[in-house]
């Protein structure tokens, strides 16, 4: 699974944008339009084609869910033993399993749909870092919830999704194992958090420093 590139090269240009452009436009306005559309510093730099609607929807859904569930996790662990904490732990677990399911869906979609190309001007080292970051994030989309699920089972609290669907325990109930799994879940979650920060920082750098239109692949309205 990790051997498959998440950022395959491919077609560069969405030809329909040019075709739909006002035929009356002179060369100057054409260049301005192109520059505005791509958000590019250089007027002739081509804008990247966008991800599919499904990929975009899944990406933002996962992004919001992961950031919310991570923040919620940080908040709830310091709560004293109370009805509120039990509720929040359960919500966190439900959200985590939902992220696990969503990630399985995303991975299946991703394996069947190549992403749009990276900007041609992007240096090789940045491509490598980008590929590595995406591979690691996908790995953690699975590892973080799975570690949380295992921790919960080991601690003697099997996960019942949304309070109705009992999920199987795939580790034994064992207090010692639970103590081992707790920092694993936390460490993996922090690692994913760090990668998300890097991911967002890189996207913002492409948008506001490089101005290469990379972000419009995931936010198509930026190129309109």
């Amino acid at each position, binding site marked *: 699974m990790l051997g498959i590139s998440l950022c395959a090269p491919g077609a560069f240009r969405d030809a329909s944008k040019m075709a739909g452009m006002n035929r009356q436009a002179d060369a100057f306005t054409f260049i301005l339009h192109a520059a505005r559309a791509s958000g590019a510093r250089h007027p002739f730099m081509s804008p990247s084609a966008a991800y599919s609607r499904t990929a975009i929807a899944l990406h933002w859904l996962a992004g919001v869910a992961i950031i919310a569930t991570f923040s919620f996790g940080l908040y709830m662990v310091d709560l004293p*033993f*109370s*009805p509120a904490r*039990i*509720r929040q732990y*359960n919500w966190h677990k439900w959200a985590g399993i939902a992220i696990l399911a969503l990630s399985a869906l995303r991975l299946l979609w991703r394996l069947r749909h190549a992403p749009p190309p990276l900007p041609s001007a992007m240096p090789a080292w940045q491509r490598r870092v980008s590929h590595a970051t995406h591979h690691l994030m996908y790995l953690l989309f699975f590892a973080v919830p799975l570690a949380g699920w295992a921790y919960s089972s080991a*601690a*003697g*609290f*099997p*996960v*019942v999704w949304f*309070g*109705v669907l*009992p999920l199987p325990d795939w580790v034994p109930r064992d*207090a010692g194992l*639970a103590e081992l799994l707790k920092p694993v879940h936390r460490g993996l979650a922090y690692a994913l958090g760090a990668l998300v920060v890097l991911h967002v920082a890189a996207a913002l750098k492409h948008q506001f420093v490089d101005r290469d239109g990379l972000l419009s692949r995931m936010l198509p309205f930026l190129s309109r």
Partner: protein
Amino acid sequence: MRRFLIVFACLLPAVAAAQQKLLPAQSEVAFTSRQMGVPVDGRFAKFDAQVAFDPKKPESAKIAFSIDLDSVSVGDAETVREVRKPGWFDTAKFPKASFQSGAVKALGGGRFEIAGTLSIKGVARPVTVPATLVQQGPNTTATGSFTIKRLDFRIGDGDWSDVSLVANDVVVKFRLALAGVPPL
């Protein structure tokens, strides 16, 4: 000597009434509570029983059972600390739960129905406990389970009384090994 005999005579019925002996190492008292649908299992390590029971004469049976609530284990260490608190078992004030049998009915096939009174946290309530007896060698094992409502006994009151969080129903399960039970 006469005095001794009188004392002895007074003790006799008590001795005769408690013919059976509980084998704690082979016995278990457990329960399952549900938190937002999640089954949370618990058990008690210390309990005792006085049993006078002849399967052929269930109507004369007398069973007294007590549980040391402080010996509870449930969920994780934090949950154990929590359930000992006043809102739950209040083990400092009410260290023991007890059951005293009333009428015992034979249902056939080694199955019995024991009506009685369950007392927890200063609240006494009637309960009916089904038990299935299996005899193997010199020992008899009685197993069964019944459901109680935790709020009937003020277990988890105040903040914890919301049954959508911690269900009102608690399933109590037992497996009691007894020595000296007459044949079924």
